[in-house]
C-alpha cells in the first residue's frame, strides 16, 4: 500500500512509515536532491530507480539519518529526520556499499558487537539469520577471509539483527550470486508482507518490478515518475 506524491505536501492523519516534505540536498552549489515530497505507508516495498548520480542514494541516506537535508522536513516512523535521531536509527536497518564489519573479528563476534550496540542481543535470532543466509558454518572465520558475496550476505544479516521496522537497501543485489539474490528477494517479500517497510534503491528495474509494490524514479535530483498500487505490484 503506497501513496506517493512528488513535490506535494503529505499527511492526512494516517500512519506513515516515511513522510518527506520538500526535501532538498545540495553540496556546495550542486543540488543532488530537489524538493522531494514522498509518503510511504507501512508494509510497502518502494523501489527507487535512477541512473548513477541521480540522487537515489542521497534520498536513502537522508531517510536513514546519515545525512541531514539542506532544506525541507520529514518524519520517519513518526520521528523527525536529521542526523542524531536515535529513534529512527533503532528502528531502521541499512545496507549500502560498505559492510561496516570489522575484518579482524569473526562474523559471530561482529554480530554480537552490532547486537550490543542496538541493545538487541538475541543469539537465537542471529543463529536463524546465519542459517538462512548460509553463513552459519563460516561464522567463526575472520571476516577478512570472506568473499565479496559472503560479505554482502553478512551485511544483510547485520542489518536485520534488531528487527528493523524500516529496511533501507541501497543496491543490495550487487555481488550476490543467483542463490543469494533469490534469498534476498524472499526476505524482502516476507518483510513487507509482515507490515514492515522496505526502501529498495536499485538501478535494475526488473528486480524492482518483481519485488516492489510502489516505485519512484529520480532524475537529476527530481522525482520524475511514480507508481503505486493498493493491491501490490507496480505499473
Amino acid at each position, binding site marked *: 500500500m503506497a501513496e506517493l506524491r512528488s513535490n506535494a505536501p503529505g499527511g492526512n492523519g494516517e500512519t506513515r512509515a516515511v513522510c518527506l516534505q520538500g526535501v532538498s540536498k545540495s553540496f556546495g552549489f550542486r543540488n543532488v536532491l530537489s524538493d522531494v515530497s514522498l509518503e510511504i505507508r507501512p508494509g510497502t516495498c518502494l523501489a527507487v530507480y535512477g541512473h548513477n548520480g541521480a540522487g537515489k542514494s542521497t534520498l536513502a541516506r537522508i531517510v536513514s539519518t546519515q545525512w541531514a537535508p539542506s532544506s525541507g522536513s520529514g518524519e520517519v516512523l513518526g520521528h523527525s529526520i536529521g542526523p542524531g535521531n536515535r529513534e529512527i536509527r533503532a528502528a531502521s536497518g541499512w545496507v549500502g556499499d*560498505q559492510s561496516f564489519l570489522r575484518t579482524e573479528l569473526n562474523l559471530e563476534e561482529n554480530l554480537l558487537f552490532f547486537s550490543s550496540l542496538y541493545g538487541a542481543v538475541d543469539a537465537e535470532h542471529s543463529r536463524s539469520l546465519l542459517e538462512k543466509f548460509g553463513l552459519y558454518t563460516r561464522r567463526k572465520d575472520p571476516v577478512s577471509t570472506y568473499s565479496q558475496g559472503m560479505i554482502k550476505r553478512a551485511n544483510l544479516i547485520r542489518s536485520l539483527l534488531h528487527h528493523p521496522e524500516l529496511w533501507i537497501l541501497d543496491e543490495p543485489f550487487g555481488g550476490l550470486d543467483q542463490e543469494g539474490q533469490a534469498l534476498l528477494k524472499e526476505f524482502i517479500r516476507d518483510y513487507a508482507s509482515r507490515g514492515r517497510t522496505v526502501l529498495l534503491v536499485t538501478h535494475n528495474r526488473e528486480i524492482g518490478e518483481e519485488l516492489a509494490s510502489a516505485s519512484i524514479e529520480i532524475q537529476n535530483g527530481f522525482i520524475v515518475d511514480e507508481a503505486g498500487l493498493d493491491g501490490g505490484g507496480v505499473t
Partner: protein
Amino acid sequence: MSGPALFFALIRWDFLRELRRKEIVLNMSLFAVLMLTIAQLGTSGDSVAMKNVGPVFFWMAIVFTGTVGLGQSFAAEREGGRLTGIQLAPIDLGVFYLAKVAATWVYMMLMSIALLGVYMLFFNFMRWDLMPSLLCAIGVFTLGYSGVGIVLSSMTTALRGGGEIVLRILILPLMVPVLLLTLMVSQATFGEQVAGGILGPPLALWKYALTVLSLDAIYLTTGYLVFPKIIEE
C-alpha cells in the same frame, strides 16, 4: 544499553581489535624506542647532558609517538565504513568518544611503560623511588593528550592521506600548556630540573596533577560535546 555498559563494551571491542591486529601499541613503542636510541647515541658519555635533556627526549618520544597511535586508532574506525556503522547505531556518540579515549589512553600508557624501561637502560635512570610520581605524570598527561587527539583525528583521518601531518600541526599547539607544565615537574618526576630550569621554578607533583587533571576535564568535556557533531557532519 546504558551509558556505562556501552562504554565498557566499546572498550572491550577496541582491546579485542588491538589484540588481534597488534599494530597500535607495537608501532608506537618501536617508534619511541627508535627516538630514544638516537637521543642516547647523541648524548652518550655526557652524564650532564643526559640528565638535562633526557626527560625532554622522553616526553618528545611520548608526544610524537602519540600522534602515530592516535592516527592509527581512528583510521581503523574509518576502514570499511565502520564509523558510519557506529553512527547509524542508536547510541550516544559521546560515549563512543569517551571509550575511544580510554582505549587510546591505555595503549599510550602501555607504550610509555615500555619506553620507561628503555629509558632506564639507556639513560642509566635507576630511580625506582620516582616511579610512582613519573607514572602519575605520564597518566595525567596522556589522558588529556588522548582526549584532544581523538577529537582531532576524527576530523583529520577523513582527509586525503590520513591527515597525520595535519593532526600533528593541530595537536601540538593545543598541548603546549600541558607540555610546559610536564617539563616543569621534571624535578619531581625525574629528580632533575630540565634544561637548567629556564621554563620556571620546579613544580610540585600535586600541583601539576591537579592543574593537568583540570585541563583534562576541560578537554574531555569539550570532546564529549563536540565529537558527535563532527561525526554527524
